[in-house]
């Protein structure tokens, strides 16, 4: 099949970007979208032009590196990661627009690459449990109800790709933050740092320039891991609880080691 591409080109963070048009890109319909970009890049490189920079790593939908806005949709026409989009998802002769994820908190680094380190800093601010490495604890010493295990796992499955942020009209990272907080706060292992965690992660989220949630629900529509907006409800509930806890003077800060 043959397609036409409109790709966002921006040599570096400070430079001004623009769309560039690439016509007659020949590609097998069973190629993946990223393989199509590889083929385009070989063509560009051979012609002495600058290849398109884009993030990718595992190419099997589990690492969360790829981050393309394809025809205005984070990750493209299906609710999977960009690497799991295939050319057969498009029709012969179609014109496809490819951009980087767009969000205030995600500055463009080059072409289709954005800086998603704000998500890492949110995790650093509280997305952990402080345990001493040492002898393995007896597995049944902390019983966890299977439903809680399931709920924690549904949140822990977040791969941190940032599609939720790119889809949100407010550029909010609350689906991501909600997933991390839910995962740890509902488990007994996360209990000791529960209130500190949610306060710290929400503070970091806001400092990074992410917007607030207004329940538009776009995030859960594009999340490749199918994380439900319920985690934002959980986040808000935990945050309220933590603030009340603080007002009553019951929690001293637990500093990260």
């Amino acid at each position: 099949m043959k397609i036409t591409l409109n790709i966002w080109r921006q040599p570096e963070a400070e430079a001004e970007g623009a769309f560039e048009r690439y016509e007659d890109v020949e590609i097998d319909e069973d190629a993946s979208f990223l393989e199509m970009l590889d083929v385009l890049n070989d063509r560009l490189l051979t012609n002495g032009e600058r290849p398109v920079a884009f993030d990718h790593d595992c190419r099997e939908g589990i690492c969360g590196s790829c981050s393309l806005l394809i025809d205005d949709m984070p990750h493209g026409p299906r609710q999977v990661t960009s690497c799991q989009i295939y050319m057969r998802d498009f029709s012969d002769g179609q014109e496809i627009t490819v951009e980087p994820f767009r969000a205030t908190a995600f500055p463009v680094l080059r072409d289709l690459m954005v800086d998603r380190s704000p998500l890492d800093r949110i995790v650093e601010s509280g997305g952990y449990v402080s345990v001493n490495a040492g002898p393995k604890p007896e597995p049944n010493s902390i019983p966890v109800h299977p439903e809680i295990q399931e709920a924690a796992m549904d949140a822990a499955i977040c791969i941190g790709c940032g599609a939720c942020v790119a889809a949100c009209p407010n550029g909010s990272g609350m689906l991501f933050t909600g997933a991390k907080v839910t995962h740890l706060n509902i488990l007994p292992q996360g209990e000791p740092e529960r209130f500190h965690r949610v306060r710290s992660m929400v503070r970091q989220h806001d400092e990074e320039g992410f917007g607030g949630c207004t329940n538009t629900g776009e995030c859960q529509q594009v999340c490749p891991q199918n994380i439900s907006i319920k985690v934002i409800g959980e986040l808000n509930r935990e945050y309220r609880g933590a603030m009340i806890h603080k007002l009553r003077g019951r929690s001293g800060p637990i500093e990260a080691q």
Partner: protein
Amino acid sequence: MMIYPAPHYSMGGLWVDYELQSTIPGLFAIGEANFSDHGANRLGASAMMQCLADGYFIAPHTVTNFVSGVSEHVAADHPAFEAAENEVRGRISALLGVQGKTPPTLFHRELGEVMLDNCGITREADGLRQAMGRVQELREAFWSDVRIEPGDAGINQTLEYAGRIADFLELAELMCRDALVREESCGCHLREEHQTDEGEAMRDDDRHANVQVWEWKGEGEEPEMQIEKLEFESIEPVTRSYK
């Protein structure tokens, strides 16, 4: 859909001691980068097991133990920093200086085919020898004809990619060399010359119950093989049989 075992597991990595420290003092290698707890075999989730075991139980103790004994604090103006930086800069400018015609992807694909055909899950001596020659040719072609996007400041993904391919080209030859010396069928790999009439793998514990470690002897030099014997005290190795 075609499913086949890829040749991307080398069944080993950097040599480390019991503290997971490499031959460079203070440089620790954990997870799949080191010698491989799983030995010559490699089942699904081996990487996860090793990453968790090393990272959770070993490194927190051995790294801190090492750091507690370090009295000299080295600053970035130490000559070793400058030497390392110059070495890396030299390597980068060598890559950028080639200015050939062929994109790195093509070398990667061709190398993959050579390895898949000759150093995959089944292998035999002639194929391995041919593959070594083929990899050497590819490496020469790479260093005289690779095309990389110019520019060593800022993000350059083709440069990064080409750096990896340069490493793969060295590792691939070493994997063939290592496979050639091991004249038995062990773990995941079947040497076609060493199988029973029924096609089952045949180990040769008298000659090969060991770990083969290859010592880097410098650019363009043949690596030297070191043997570490495997000694079994409480469990004797037996033939694995799924019958």
